[in-house]
């Protein structure tokens, strides 16, 4: 083989894959068309678009961009994922509290797979590399409904970040302590709203710093079980009478 044919072969073999697997999907997904909600078929809330059409736009409240940066810089993605895989790729949807809520209070099962619109406002979806800890797609719901039942979710989360092994049933947790995201401040007068480990002798307490606040805001915003339009609704075929009228697909 000549030098010329060698380089041509090299460039062609790599270039084809590069185009089809990297470049084309990158640009195509960049211009992902929003799903236009159909009257009578899709019963979800969306955002208003041009010509007053409604399109699917899951809302997320919280300091997402800042919080995501803290999440990334502190390596949370190394132990936690943020993806609920469809049933052909894993059993994530079967867990009672990962993919959503098995019973959202109205008896409705909101669990669903992750879709392409679940990472709004983030630059890099922290899909995650391993699951040493549980999946975080619906952490916000899990904290509010299960972990911090009855009390302030933010307070519970700050306490957990400070010492993940505090609760009796979490003794074996391998989550690192994020004590370094808290500042030790002198307390004059009343305790600030979120203050922990108050030391009466030194009159100091641990107060979350800006990174901790952004991170907690981000984590509590992780609720990816909102209702989806019919094209993203993959529930098993329902009888015609019931609520979400998914067009009967041939299976």
């Amino acid at each position, binding site marked *: 083989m000549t030098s010329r044919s060698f380089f041509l072969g090299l460039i062609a073999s790599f270039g084809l894959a590069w185009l089809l*697997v*990297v470049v084309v999907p990158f640009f195509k*997904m960049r211009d992902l068309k929003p799903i236009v909600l159909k009257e009578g078929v899709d019963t979800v809330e969306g955002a208003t678009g041009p010509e007053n059409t409604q399109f699917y736009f899951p809302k997320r409240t919280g300091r997402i961009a800042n919080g995501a940066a803290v999440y990334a810089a502190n*390596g949370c993605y190394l132990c936690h994922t943020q993806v609920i895989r469809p049933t052909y790729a894993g059993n994530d949807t079967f867990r009672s509290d990962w993919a959503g809520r098995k019973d959202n209070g109205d008896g409705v099962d909101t669990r669903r797979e992750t879709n392409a619109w679940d*990472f709004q406002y983030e630059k*890099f979806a922290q899909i995650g590399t391993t*699951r040493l800890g549980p999946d975080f797609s619906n952490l916000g719901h899990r904290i509010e409904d299960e972990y911090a039942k009855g009390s302030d979710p933010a307070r519970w989360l700050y306490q957990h970040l400070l010492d993940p092994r505090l609760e009796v049933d979490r003794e074996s*947790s391998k989550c690192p302590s994020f004590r370094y995201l808290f500042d030790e401040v002198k307390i004059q007068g009343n305790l600030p709203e979120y203050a922990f480990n108050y030391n009466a002798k030194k009159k100091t307490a641990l107060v979350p710093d800006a990174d901790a606040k952004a991170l907690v805001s981000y984590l509590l915003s992780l609720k990816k079980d909102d209702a989806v339009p019919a094209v993203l609704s993959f529930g098993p075929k329902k009888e015609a009478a019931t609520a979400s009228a998914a067009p009967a697909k041939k299976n």
Partner: protein
Amino acid sequence: MSQDTSNTPEKDAILRASIDRSLRHPVMFFFTSAAAWLAVSIFLGLIASAKTHSPTFLSCAGWLSYGRIFPAHVNALVYGWGAQAAFGVMVWLMSRLSRQTCRNSGIILTAGHVWNLAISLGVVGILSGFGTGMPWMEFPSFVWPVLFLCYTAIAVWSVVQFKVRPEGHTYISQWYILGAMVWFPWVFLTANILLHCLPGHPVMAAGINAWYRSALLLLFFVPVGIGAAYYLVPKVTGRAIASYTLAKISFWSLAIIAPWAGMQKLTGAPIPYFLPYLGAAATILIAIPAIVAAVNLLSTASQAGELITNSPTLRFTIAGLIGLLIFGIVCVLLNLPESTLPISQFTLSGYGFDLLGLYGFFSLVMFGAIYFIVPRITRREWLSRRLIKMHFIFSTYGIGFIVLFTIFGGLQQGIAQEQFNSPWEQVAKAAFPYAIGTTFAWCFILFSNVFFFVHLTLMWLRLGRRSSHPTLLIDAHHGSPHGPEGDIDNAGPGTVHVH
């Protein structure tokens, strides 16, 4: 092998020696600093591994937290050790095979220093909390352009040397090294520009990152390793490569298959549906170039049993090739979408797979290459048989244990994860014993590399043995490796016309 050298064997040896000498500064620098980064990376990896089972270990400061130490470990391993060892070997190998002395050692050396500075800043950046959160690309965003420029300054001369080489046949190793020199910048630039500079969809960004990790391993580290092995095995054994056809197959199958792999790490995520399955199929098919290259080279060396015991180079290279064989098999085992992919996807076995490729194959071959090259560029022989033996034993046992624990443990972890009725506390316990085993194995590897780093530094300090007899692992000469008359050489130059 060029045919026009009508020189005598002495002149040929003199040419090769002068090529070696011309490169001594940059290559020795690359090797020594790579070994230093390897020690740093292993140390960080050991701490990180300890934290997976004992999270209160060293939990005082932010920069010691698992989420920062682990990326620092991986990036130091990949860019500090892996890339620099690869650069040293690439530059030397291309020079030798193109029969051109290197006239730009100064620039390469400077680029090497800048590379080191950049990754030092990068690692400090990660530990300080400025990591980008993109696996294998956690360096703060100012680092990658510097790395790219350094790479260009290092590699372009080798391409030039190839262009001006004397007429003649191109040897197998040159295909692999040239391939790596073309693939690395293409892959590196693509990933960094698409992820840092252009706005894109967040999930696709994660997909391209997964592709990058796979491509860096399969299209940079693996070809450099195989290329070095294709040089070292025939060189040391003196036998021709078993099958030239298999060599061609192993190269072109790698070139064609590897660029499609990587997206299987994101199976189930909302990217175009076929991409992860294409990635899984491609990763399974990587077994072909891996097994073919390993079989080809192992059968070349198969009759040279005594040499394998004696020569450090050959021992490490053969161990690395066995690692490559296992790597090929594991590629198939971990990526079957209906059975093993869901239980390996988010587990320790991904880390184990990367380590198998990076350490179990690439690093062992690089050690072999370093043991071969350093005496030639420093004109000194290795000081201590024992240091080399310790390095070998602890490295091979260490990586063997790590791969066993992480891959098997990862699969156990995956099976536990899929038991959806099991509370998470139960599931997390599945990984615990394997995490401990992994920490233990890292201790072995740290130990082995302390020997290596010390030995290499002594060579760098010009304290090696002055002798014409190589340091072999078995003492074959009357109790002294220096020959019957000590240091004085009475063996003339070889009488065989060599490359």
